[in-house]
């Protein structure tokens, strides 16, 4: 008997009502004990719905789910089911039910009414497995996101389950947290726990031997991961293959070489090196001439624009410990703060809140600057200084020549000129209708009537939202992805000269990430200045002209993308990755192959450069000439 058996599962939300939607259709598969299965699909494919069925959180509308022989439709079997299959969810902070680490881990065993000694034993064991031994009495607030997720895993382990289902458990974590969690999953599987890993990230899929692909509520594929990547089929349409694989296929087509099915850049680089036995001598410096004819539109535009920088920061320091509520009533202070001054901030006090030390940089018009750095290095704080949400405590910030903080009257103008899109902009939604939500900013700026409507229409177009279809829809009834676009449109509607984006791609699947990057590129082409802070090196590489690296509040590196990414060792010592293609470049360089990349990175550009290296095969079939 398999551990998990899903037979003809169907799930319908709100059956019988006009809003009824079928999330899952005729799903059948099994999971054996000890397997490591990845369940992938684009957002909206029904992955989470399926996950909830595996633990009895949802009951099937049709078909059935058997866990170790127990039917999830049977309420008396549910305790046993939940002891067999445990779950870890996406947001670490939404799984915590106690004020200390050990109390939280103990929650599961407590529910099982086990004896105190047994609970203690399980708590100790789970915490050491996840690497949190010694943290027992610590408050969960003091943990990093990665640690919180490990705590959630400990909570699941304390049930001593035979399988753990991870529902997008890594999507909200930074690269380090993700690495930790994946390593833990691997280890648990090695020790015998069955793992079902639900994700939309292809680089995580390669961890599993078996992959199940879900799309539009149906299983599109169920088999070994090599099979999935090897096939040339369009199964992965919505998700996209790993970039390294796409590159390999493109090169195979162009150069007539078989590079196998490398799923990451190191493997690809080995394949390329293997395919270049004697060419290294002659192809010494391929790559540079891969530049397209004529300058890019962005380059042209920048040549035309002003040469003075748009934003200048010098000697900026900021410390959260310093605050000055004087001895007046809180409300008075808040009211004064509201009158055009810095909005009151309620937040500080935990260990992760950074300061800034003497940061200086300048951002040119039409440029794209990426701010990178480990979590807690001050990226968000810096960004919030650039649009006058924070007034400088020390040092100065100048936007378009105007000193930030010099006069209260100027602050709204600055904030309009420099728009800031926070992480998860969908969380700021409040208006009933989409149109009104997006109109909020421009309306406060004084727009009205037809002009306002046109502005909203433009903003929605930019963000990829259909104006007519969506403007009268209930904002809260939209999908998560659409809500995020609404949040973005709300800032775009102010037509800012510069756009600051704080982690714009967190939690997005490959398609959405690509669309977001395209949107930002489009804005850049139109002359908008962009500053993004991100953990995603590939995104940074694809957009940025210049990179700024922060660590513990100080600016430790600055320069063009080429310069900064070239210093891979320095980046790694800070705990940062390099973009995949850079990894490739470094490995080739190490073997004496001269090779350069053109920033911002473009897929075609990389393939062009590599094809030149490998010797393009002019094939009768493809080009029609010899």
């Amino acid at each position, binding site marked *: 008997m398999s551990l998990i058996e899903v037979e003809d599962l169907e799930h319908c939300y709100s059956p019988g009502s006009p809003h009824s939607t079928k999330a899952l259709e005729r799903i059948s598969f099994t999971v054996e004990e000890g397997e490591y299965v990845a369940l992938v699909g684009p957002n909206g494919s029904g992955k989470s719905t399926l996950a909830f069925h595996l633990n009895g959180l949802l009951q099937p509308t049709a078909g059935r789910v058997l866990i170790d022989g127990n039917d999830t439709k049977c309420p008396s079997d549910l305790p046993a089911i939940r002891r067999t299959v445990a779950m870890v969810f996406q947001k670490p902070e939404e799984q915590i039910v106690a004020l200390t680490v050990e109390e939280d881990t103990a929650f599961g065993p407590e529910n099982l009414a086990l004896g105190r000694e047994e609970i203690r034993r399980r708590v100790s064991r789970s915490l050491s497995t996840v690497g949190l031994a010694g943290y027992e009495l610590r408050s969960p607030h003091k943990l990093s996101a990665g640690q919180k997720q490990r705590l959630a895993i400990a909570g699941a382990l304390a049930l001593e389950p035979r399988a753990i289902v991870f529902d997008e458990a890594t999507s909200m974590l930074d690269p380090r947290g993700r690495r930790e969690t994946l390593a833990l999953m691997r280890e648990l599987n090695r020790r015998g726990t069955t793992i079902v890993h639900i994700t939309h990230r292809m680089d995580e899929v390669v961890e599993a031997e078996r992959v199940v692909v879900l799309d539009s509520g149906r299983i599109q594929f169920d088999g070994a991961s090599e099979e999935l990547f090897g096939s040339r089929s369009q199964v992965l349409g919505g998700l996209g293959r790993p970039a390294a694989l796409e590159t390999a296929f493109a090169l195979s087509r162009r150069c007539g070489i078989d590079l196998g099915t490398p799923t990451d850049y190191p493997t690809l680089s080995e394949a390329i090196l293997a395919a270049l036995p004697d060419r290294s001598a002659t192809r010494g410096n391929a790559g540079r001439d891969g530049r397209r004819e004529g300058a890019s539109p962005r380059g042209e535009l920048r040549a035309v624009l002003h040469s003075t920088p748009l934003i200048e920061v010098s000697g900026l320091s900021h410390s959260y410990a310093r605050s000055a*509520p004087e001895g007046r*009533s809180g409300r008075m202070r808040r009211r004064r703060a509201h009158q055009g001054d810095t909005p009151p901030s309620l937040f500080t006090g935990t260990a992760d809140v950074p300061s800034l030390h003497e940061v200086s940089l300048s951002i040119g018009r039409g440029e794209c600057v990426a701010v990178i750095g480990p979590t807690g290095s001050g990226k968000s704080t810096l960004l919030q200084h650039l649009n006058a949400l924070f007034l400088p405590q020390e040092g100065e910030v100048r936007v378009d020549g105007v000193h930030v903080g010099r006069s209260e009257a100027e602050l709204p103008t600055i904030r309009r000129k420099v728009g800031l899109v926070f992480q998860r902009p969908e969380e700021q939604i*409040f208006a*009933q209708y989409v*149109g*009104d939500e997006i*109109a909020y900013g421009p309306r406060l700026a004084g727009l009205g009537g037809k002009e*306002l409507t046109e502005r*909203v229409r433009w903003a929605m177009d930019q963000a990829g939202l259909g104006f007519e279809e969506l403007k009268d829809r209930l904002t809260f009834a939209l999908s998560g992805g659409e809500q995020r676009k609404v949040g973005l449109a709300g800032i775009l509607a102010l037509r800012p000269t510069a756009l600051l984006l704080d982690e714009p791609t967190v939690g997005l699947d490959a398609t959405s990430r690509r669309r977001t990057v395209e949107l930002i590129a489009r804005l850049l082409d139109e002359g908008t200045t962009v500053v993004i802070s991100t953990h995603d090196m590939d995104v940074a590489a694809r957009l940025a002209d210049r990179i700024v690296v922060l660590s513990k509040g100080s600016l430790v590196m600055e320069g063009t993308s080429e310069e900064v990414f070239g210093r891979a060792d320095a980046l790694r010592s800070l705990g940062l990755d390099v973009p995949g293609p850079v990894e490739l470049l470094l490995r080739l360089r190490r073997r004496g192959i001269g090779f350069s990349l053109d920033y911002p990175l473009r897929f075609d550009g990389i393939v062009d450069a590599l094809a030149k290296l490998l010797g393009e095969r002019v094939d009768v079939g493809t080009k029609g000439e010899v």
Partner: protein
Amino acid sequence: MNARKIAVAGVLSAIAIFLGIPPIHLGYIPWFAGASLTVMAAPVIIGAVLEGPIVGLAIGFLFGLSSLVNAAVAPSGPADVLFTNPLVSVFPRLFIGPVAWLIYRPFEKRARPVGMVLAGIGGSLTNTALVLGMIVLLGKIGLPLAGTIALTNGGPEAAANAFLVLAVVAAWKRIEIGRRGSQLE
């Protein structure tokens, strides 16, 4: 008490407590002559409307408790002095949720928005009336003064709470209120 009720009660209690924390008093909307309209009753009412009277009771209790603690430890107005007495700060707040739920119940099947608004008004007025009532009973202020406060502060406060309850519950349950469409030309 299923998990859902506990989670909602806990979360909304946290909000009610948070809105009242000095010195920021996020839940205090500035009104005239230095007075404020407080909207901490709104999470209590929302909890009652969504999950029932017991959840409303729990949230109200924790809200009252937090106003007691705040009053003792960081008083910021004459009212706080009175709130050091749990009969004034805790006892009245127990009723906000159940009263709101009772008002909402007949509307649950039809005309929900109306029910939400009435529950909001009712819950808020319960708060005003009982708090002032206890203060009068304990002999701290006279009846006429209490009445004036009830009208000038309690009325607008009820409107504010009702608005908030309506906006949030409608958003959460994806119920459309009123106009069909945004206000764009």
